């Protein structure tokens, strides 16, 4: 599954990264998979949220088949 990356993660890893997810997954699994591939970014990922289909995801379980887009949202800093 492709995951969109932003801010420092996009600049240093790339605009997307591919991860393997089970058919049922939790948002935390997304962060863990990226951390496993890029341990250097653990601190950034710890501060980040997961967005699923352009909505902040809470701790509930998601079905991979129902999901179109996943993104990692580092701490926002607009304004």
């Amino acid at each position, binding site marked *: 599954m492709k995951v*969109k990356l*932003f*801010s*420092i993660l*996009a*600049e240093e890893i790339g605009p997307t990264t591919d991860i393997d997810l089970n058919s049922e997954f939790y948002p935390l699994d997304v962060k863990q998979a990226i951390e496993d591939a890029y341990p250097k970014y653990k*601190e*950034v990922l710890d*501060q980040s949220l997961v*967005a699923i289909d*352009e*909505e*902040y995801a809470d701790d509930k379980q998601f079905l991979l088949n129902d999901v179109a887009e996943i*993104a990692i*949202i*580092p*701490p*926002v*800093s*607009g*304004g």
Partner: protein
Amino acid sequence: MKIEITHEPIDTQALTQSLIHNEYGGVDIFIGNIRQFTDDIETEKIEYTTYKKMAEKEMHKLADIVLAKGMDVVMVHRVGELQLGDIAVFIGVAAPHRAEAFENCQFLIDELKHTVPIWKKEYDCDKIRWGGLED
């Protein structure tokens, strides 16, 4: 009502004018621009990036809260590379009376800073800082 994320300079005059209606007696506007000094740290420029589709959705959610109270709202954020003095964000609320215009304008900019996926990369004289991240 207008919600936009744009690469273009923000036309504050046109946006302000769009908030002037006969039914509203007060318009409150917040403009955020690129500041040179933050304490001893000197900033040269800031590059803003966004997750545009989600950012506009989040801005609509915030605007809807204020629109539901019978006010008018403008929220425009510029992205790309901005220089000192450039305007990064324009928030305007038109309301029947000033107190609610002030209050809701502050609500919108405060919440935008918390929830809307826009990021700044700050080019300071000593180093690059990513906004929002703990050093």
